[in-house]
Structures are given as C-alpha cells and as structure tokens.
C-alpha cells in the first residue's frame, strides 16, 4: 500500500514539474511584459517585476501601430472563419448527401489536395495572386484561405454520421435542398460547426507565411507579420524585450480565450471514446 502511494506521489511530482515547464514560459512572458527593459534582462527568471511598468503596453498603442494590426487580424480572421464554416459545410454536405456525377472524383481530389504542404504553396500562391491582380489587398490575403480541404473532410464525415431520415421527411414535405440544409441539417451539425469555427479562427489568426507573400504594404500588416517586424528589429537600440513580450501576450489573448471557453470541446475530441 505505501509502495503504491509513494509511486503515485512520485508520478504526481513529475507531472507537476512537467506542467510547470509547459506553463512557466507563458507566465514569464506575462511578467516580462510588465518589467522595465533592465529588469527583464537582469531578472530573467522572476515572475514579479521589481516595479510594475506599463510602458511596453503604452508604447504598443501609441508608437507602434498595434491597433491597426489587430484590426486587420480581426477582419481577416472573421471573414476567413465565416467563409470556411459556410463553404466547407456546403461542400461537405454535397459530398456526403447529394448524388451527382463526379462526386467520387472530387472527393479523391480533395484528399490529394490535403497532402500538399503549405510552405510549398508560398511561391505558387504569390504567382497566382499577382496574376489575378489582388496582390497587396485584403482579397489576396483572405480568399485563398476561405476554403480548406481538411474542413470539408470533417464536415462530410459529420454529415454521414447523422441519420438521413429527418432530411428525407423534410424533402417529402416539399422543402427544397438548400432549405433542408440550412434549417434542418446545419442546426444538427452544431458540434462539428463549433469545431470548424475554432480551428478556422485559430488557423487564420495565427497564419503568418501567407500574409508574408500576399502583401507588402505596412498598412496591411496583421498581428503576426507586424509582431514579426518588431522582432526583426526596427525599434532602435537594445533588445526591448518587454515591448516584444507585451505584443506576444496581446496576440495570444484571443486564441487563449477561445481555447479556455471551448476547452472541453477541443479536448473532448478524445473524450468521446471514453465510455469507461
């Protein structure tokens, strides 16, 4: 009994240490963002600033165009997310429920497309965006991200898991295909839609490489490209860690909030099978 308890205790201690390793960098960054430059450099491990300084945040909102970056990020993430949720579910529904010629070919094509890695697409996408005359515009930054094959795949799988009888009843009652989809099927698909919403928002909020190749004017900087420009040093002298950390903290907040709100949902991708 005591042997069991000792080993349980040991594994708890180990897990707590591991968890600390995972959490501490974030706490340090948060603390660092409230330090003075000298304090951040001299006391890199301390979680408490010697004197609380809000200078970093103040500068981010006055001398650095962070609000503009944030606005661009919000605009892009919202449109991309709504577009993805809507277009992915339309496509997923067509692939799972509607009979039409070429459906299997399209699905096979989608699976193939899922395998194309994103970094390989940087140059090709830039070429196309340029050809279409939408380089350095919201259109070029947003439209290429508005559909993703993985999302279509997730929706298709979900639609296949819900019984077809309800839709058939609605159709027999005379509802059109789109109305059936919009008023009956989509509400039933809420769990999958929430998943897709989270993934799309997180993906487009955190997107970096695509915004490097689809724009050049600083007015179109998102939080990711803007903060990256802070790190590549246009700030004058010193390492200015508090400022950079404050920017990192601010850009992490929205996805962190989303994560904690939908935590059960995100983690429960695995709880489903846990019936005991």
């Amino acid at each position, binding site marked *: 009994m005591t042997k069991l308890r000792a080993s349980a205790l040991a594994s708890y201690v180990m897990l707590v240490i591991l968890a600390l390793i995972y959490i501490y960098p974030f706490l340090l960054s948060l603390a660092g963002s409230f330090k003075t430059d000298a304090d951040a450099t001299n006391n*890199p491990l301390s979680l408490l600033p010697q004197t609380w300084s809000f200078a970093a945040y103040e500068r981010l909102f006055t001398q650095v165009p962070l609000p503009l970056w944030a606005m661009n990020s919000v605009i892009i993430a919202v449109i991309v997310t709504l577009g993805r949720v809507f277009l992915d579910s339309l496509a997923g529904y067509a692939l799972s429920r*509607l*009979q039409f010629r070429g459906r299997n070919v399209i699905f096979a094509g989608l699976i193939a497309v899922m395998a194309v890695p994103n970094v390989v697409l940087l140059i090709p996408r830039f070429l196309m965006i340029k050809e279409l005359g939408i380089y350095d515009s919201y259109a070029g930054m947003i439209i290429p991200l508005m559909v993703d094959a993985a999302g279509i795949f997730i929706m298709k799988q979900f639609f296949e898991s819900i019984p077809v009888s309800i839709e058939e009843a609605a159709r027999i009652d005379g509802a059109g295909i789109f109305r059936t989809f919009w008023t009956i099927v989509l509400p039933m698909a809420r769990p999958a839609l929430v998943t897709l919403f989270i993934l799309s928002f997180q993906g487009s909020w955190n997107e970096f490489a695509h915004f490097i190749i689809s724009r050049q004017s600083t007015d179109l900087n998102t939080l990711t490209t803007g903060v990256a420009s802070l*790190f590549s040093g246009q700030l004058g002298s010193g390492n200015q860690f508090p400022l950079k950390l404050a920017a990192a903290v601010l850009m992490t907040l929205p996805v*962190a909030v989303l994560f904690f709100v939908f935590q059960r949902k995100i983690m429960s991708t695995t709880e489903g099978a846990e019936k005991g």
Partner: protein
Amino acid sequence: MAKGIRGGEAGRGWLFISPALVIIGLFLVLPILLAVWVSFSDWNGLGSPLSGNTSFVGTKNYEKLLVDPGLSQRDFGTSIRNNFYYVILVVPLQTALALFLAVQVNRRILKARGFFRTAFYFPSVTSSIAITGIFIFLFSASGAINALLGWLGINGPNWLADPRGIFHNFVELFGVHSAPTALAAGGPLGISWWEWLAGPSVAMCMLIVLAIFTTSGTFMLIFLAGLQSIGAEIDEAALMDGTGPFRKFFSITLPMLKPTLFTVITLGLIGTWQLFDQVYLTGGGAPGKTLLTPAYLSYETSFKGLNWGQGAAMAFLLFLLIVALTLLQRYILRDRHKGEKLDKEMQRQIALHASVTKGGTS
C-alpha cells in the same frame, strides 16, 4: 414530379461544391501548374511569367541546385543538412514525449487530468510568431535558460548567435579542431563531409526545443484518441495476465498503438520539413546559415534574390521529398490499419490536427 425527392440533386450538388472547387482550383491547383512553369523558366519577377519575355530554360534551375557546383548548390545543401538534423532530433523526441504525456494523463486514477491536458496542450494553440518570440527571450544570452544553467554551474552559450555544430563541439573535447583530411572534401551537394557531420548548430538546438515544446501537446491528443479506442481491450488483456505497468506498456499498449504511432511520426516528418516561420523570425538563417531550411531558402531565393525559377524548383524538390515520405507511410500502414471505426476516428483526428498545424506551427 417524376424526379421524386432526389430531384435536382445533381444541379444542387455542383452548386454547393462549386465555391470550394473554384477557390481550391484558383489558389491551389492552378498556382502549382504556374509554378511548375516558372521552375523551368528564367522569370525575373517583372511582369507576368506568362508574358513573352520569360523563356523556357529546361532543367537548368534544378541542375543549379542538384548538380552544378556553386553557391546555389551549397546553400541548398546546407539547408537540407540543417533541416535534416532538425527532423531527426525533433520527430523521435516529440513522439516519445507526446506518447509519454498521453499515457500519463490517460490514467483513470489521476486527479486533475483536465488541468494537465490543458497545460500540455496550450502551447499548441499559440501562434508560431508569439511562441518563437517568447523563446528568443528565454534563450537570450542573459535569459532564463542561461540563468537556470548558471545555477547548475554551466556557462550557457549565446544561443541564437552560435553557429557551431554540436557534433563539432563534441569532437573538439578530444582535441579535433578542424576537418580530418578524409572528411575535408567530397560530400554531396557541394558540402564537405565534415560540414555534413557538424550536427545541428547551437542555435538550431533552440528551434528543436521549441518544436518539441509546441507540438508534443497536439500529438498527445492524437495518442489519447488512440489509447482510448483500445483502452478496454488493454485493461482486459493486462488483467488476465496480471502484468506490471512497464510490461503492459511495451508488450500490449505499444503494439496496439502502432497505427497511431505511424500516423504521428508521419505528421511529424511532414511538419518538420516545413520549418519556415521560426527561421524568418530568428533572422533568416542566421547564424552562419545554420538555421537555413529549404522552405525558407526557396522563399528567400525568390522574393529577395528574384531568382524565381530556382526558388520554385526548390519548393518542388521539397514537395517531392514530403510526398515520398507520405507514400512511404501509406505503404507501411496499408496492411495494419484495420477496423473501420478506429479508421474513421483517426482520420478525423488527423484532419483536425492537420488543419491546425498547416498554418506553420510545426
């Protein structure tokens, strides 16, 4: 009326799927075709690559990378070497750590499982830019990592400014300071064997730790899905035998997790060969080009060097490499991955995580 309730489905089907098809066609399929052309051309970035002043140069761009001695080939070789060491260290370590974490937080008797899962998964949701920025802070010359090393009496390196390969550092301990004559020349892609064997630079070690830190949580979730779909069977098998936890893990759990394990390794291989954001943020390959990766080099060659043909050629070589790894995985998985139900759940997991990691977090 003759059509019944299936009436109009064909038209609607095409209508529903057409926005997705148009976007994927315009921004994925056509761009690839365009880039294939560019990779065989001498386009200099001015005007359209489809206009008259761009000409076909055959396989010249590919030759410059693969066979012609010169700076292009050396840079490409260096980027392959750097990324290779990154892959060979990150993939096994993150897989092992993710599996370890999954087994730990899957235990039923564990209290606060939710807390631990959250803690381990949280780094996966942050943006690559924010987390790389945080790591630059932690690994700065007088940063947290060196302060910790200082407690242990170790004088930490100036991580991001240190181009020395760790294998070179290791043999230096035995008095080997420069290349032995046998290794001084003659390696593939214009790089001497001595350089190939340098190991990851000290700076690269930071990116390796970063990758393990940010992706182990994602893969932990995939392993958890795998563990839970086989959970009951394992417990029964173990109960019958009365096996201890170690034997249970190695002789029952691990073999049953094989499909999941292969999946995680493949996703890891694909993700690690795409290292880009972190390189961009740490100075575009600095120090001493030891952080250069094929993904970043292809971007730099095109967008900064205006050598679009070579940049595109590099992207396709990288693509081929990743496709080869994926096909290898399909081949290995072909016979073992049975059971329709597990299949679907795992496919869903893969799709879920693929769409997250595609953004370049890994």
